């Protein structure tokens, strides 16, 4: 498939996601719905990796570029930012740390428990 076809395929799935997400009861935002549809299409082999890989790599590698205009919009929130900017940082730093530790420790504990269970099973076999 040509690169243009790859872009078309991704655009179609994006559109499908956005349309489906207009159903009020669904919890997902539109593009996340599109991402899940794409994942299902890949898992069921309806879409193959090589049918989207070049366009998909393009989008992934330039992802940071795409949100620059969003950040520039911050100029219209000047007032909020000058009043609460420091407080925002005071929230961001510790909560990032708690999230990192909570995830890491949960994984550590679960890996340890699985390992222990496996060892026990191993002893049983012996």
């Amino acid at each position, binding site marked *: 498939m040509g690169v243009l076809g790859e872009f078309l395929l991704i655009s179609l799935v994006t559109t499908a996601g956005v349309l489906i997400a207009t159903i009020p009861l669904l919890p997902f935002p539109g593009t996340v719905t599109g991402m899940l549809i794409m994942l299902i299409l890949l898992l069921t082999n309806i879409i193959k990796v090589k049918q989207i890989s070049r366009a998909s790599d393009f989008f992934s590698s330039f992802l940071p570029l795409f949100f620059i205009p969003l*950040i520039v919009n911050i100029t*219209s929130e000047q007032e909020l930012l000058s009043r609460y900017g420091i407080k925002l940082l005071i929230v961001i730093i510790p909560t*990032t740390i708690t999230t*990192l530790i909570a995830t890491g420790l949960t994984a550590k504990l679960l*890996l340890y428990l699985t390992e222990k269970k496996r060892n026990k099973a191993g002893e049983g076999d012996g």
Partner: protein
Amino acid sequence: MADLIQTFSETPMFGLVLTLTAYAVGQKIYIKLPVSFFHPVLTASALIILFLFFFDISLDDYQNGGRMISFMLGPATVSLALPLYKKIDILKSHFLIILTAITVGTITSIISVTLISKTLNLPSELTLSLIPKSVTTPIAVETAEKIGGLPSITALSVIFTGITGAVTGPALLKLFRIKSPTAKGLALGTASHAIGTSRALELGQTEGAISSLSIGLAGIITAIAAPILVRILF
């Protein structure tokens, strides 16, 4: 010169050219000065804001072209399915561990943001902007819009979160004796998305792979959990 820039600024090409140029400069600076704070997106955004201010160009004129670039966030989010699909074997091999760890991390993030924001008396639109900050920008922004946050504040917070995770991550992992590559990757990817993942890649291949898997999963879980938790917590 100023006249020429004024005329140019009224065409959509302006926002496009300015953003691409600023991003290229941002990347150059980052290569010369690889300090987390000089993340190309931050430098580029600052350069653009300064340029608009200096030449007295309105945000609307800039967004004529800027919009075309941010429009790409939609298909870019859908494209996140591919890296997720490529790592699906890792997910299958540790399915419960990965899913539980990311869910615990996501819920911790949302609850701790809400608690600290309330303690500091932040207006609720700011708290709601901060709630999805640990996940990749396109998902964070869409989730923020859905729960009533301000997308620009969310986008900026996502970057600062990424930088915080990448800078403090390795030391925190050591402090809490988190040694397994799987746990390290999960922690970095869940707390600090792609910026954390580039740090995870420096630690090792498994760390990087698990971290990049976590970006998509944490995004999906946040997109589901945030609206529900917000209803309970607010």
